[in-house]
């Protein structure tokens, strides 16, 4: 029966189906005409190439972790991670062909994460020197209670 429905509902979906499918075609030389209305199956070659790209990047990040580059290391591996995440989002999650709204939504959320981390970190950095480290306490005062320090 699904077929009948497909045909029944054919007309009203079609108009829309068309242009999406076309935008799609130009984009990546694949994409399925109005048979599939709003569905845009991804070509297999694309899926596979994305996957292998991801594997390669994983290998790279493991490899670079062997050298201790100090602080640069963090940024390097985070950059690689971000590239990987980008691949996943754009292709596997289909964001590239999705409604812009969804893209805005997810990017917007990242802005708020940045906000949250940003302010909290900035503050922590600011009062850092006031903090009493457990380690130093331990060294200075054996057998003292929790936050006891020597005046």
């Amino acid at each position: 029966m699904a077929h009948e429905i497909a045909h029944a509902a054919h007309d009203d979906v079609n108009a829309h189906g068309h242009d999406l499918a076309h935008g799609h075609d130009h984009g990546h030389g694949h994409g399925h005409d109005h048979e599939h209305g709003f569905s845009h199956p991804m070509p297999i070659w694309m899926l596979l190439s994305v996957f292998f790209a991801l594997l390669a990047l994983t290998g790279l990040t493991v490899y670079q972790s062997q050298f201790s580059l100090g602080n640069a290391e963090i940024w390097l591996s985070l950059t690689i991670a971000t590239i990987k995440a980008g691949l996943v989002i754009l292709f596997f999650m289909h964001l590239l062909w999705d409604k812009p709204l969804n893209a805005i939504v997810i990017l917007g959320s990242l802005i708020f994460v940045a906000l949250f981390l940003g302010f909290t970190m900035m503050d922590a950095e600011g009062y850092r020197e006031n903090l009493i480290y457990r380690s130093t306490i331990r060294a200075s005062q054996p057998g003292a209670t929790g936050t006891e320090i020597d005046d």
Partner: protein
Amino acid sequence: MTAIQDSALTHDDALHGHHEHPEWLAHHFDDAEQQYDAGKFGMWMFLVTEVLFFSGMFCAYALLRNRNPEVFEYCSQFLNEKLGAINTGVLLFSSLTMAWAVRSAQLREYRLLIVMLGATLGCAAMFLGVKAVEYSHKWELGLLPGKFYVAQLGGHSLEHQGYLEYLCIVPLILTVSFFVYWIYSLVTKSSFHQQVAGPLFVAGLCFFGGVGLGQMLEAQEAAAHESHAGHEHAGHAHTEHTDHAHGSESATEATASLAGTASISETGLGPSEDVKVMKEALTTPNVDVNQKGMAGLFFSIYYCMTGIHAIHIIGGMVVITWLITKAARREFHEKYFGPVDNVGLYWHLVDFIWIYLFPLLYLIT
């Protein structure tokens, strides 16, 4: 997850008889595309909440890291990059199969769809298997969160606790029952049940595959460091010393950790990335890192992040199973594949999170 079900099946919604609507189209939607868009947009919103949910733990991580970098230097020794890398690969592959599943759903390639979903399920199980090995191994070293942290410098494992066995009980029961289910489906020759039972059973096996793989790699690590066994005693001297300083915790804790030492010094060689650790520790400037408030804090964050991530994996597995049943009923087609697509999105997000967890926890020292 409910979001998907909502936009998807509402045929049991007897209250509103809308005979004009095909049963896969909810009564309050006008057409298939509106339903699809609503479901998908809803899922993206849900992913937003997930991102912010995890951001809390990333924030905690960042705070600890910039307050006590030395802790990370020290603790990264306990994390086995190989296992992490393997798991990353497994998750990435599961993402591939998931994306492929969406394609097959759109193209009505039902066999392939079920294979792909099954593969995703299997990868998830394998991921958990490897995690089980990691966790149990850390617990035996006493690398526990916060106030339970009792690891000693030189981190000898306490005598074999069999945590891994405990972790395997539930999967074992499940696998067996899946097996029974599968046999049943073969006997009854019900193709629906076969298509559901098959993947489930395979997934069950994959878990133990993961466990096996994990132990193999841990063993390799061990072999790699046998040579350093010499440093033992130095290690002990150190241990006792730092441990007396430990008295600072409330009396009970102090005694607890002392007891810990005793039982430890009796036991001989543990799995030996310990030894590597001990060597580190001797050279580490700040010996105090090996305490509840330092390394303990790191492992708190480690367990929170990976643990909650694992819970998401399990959640995902449940929903994928649900998809397999729908796929076995041939419910999807080019106008109704929202459920596969949305679960896909969720699954990729779980992968997305891990892509960051892996370098942050395993690689960066």
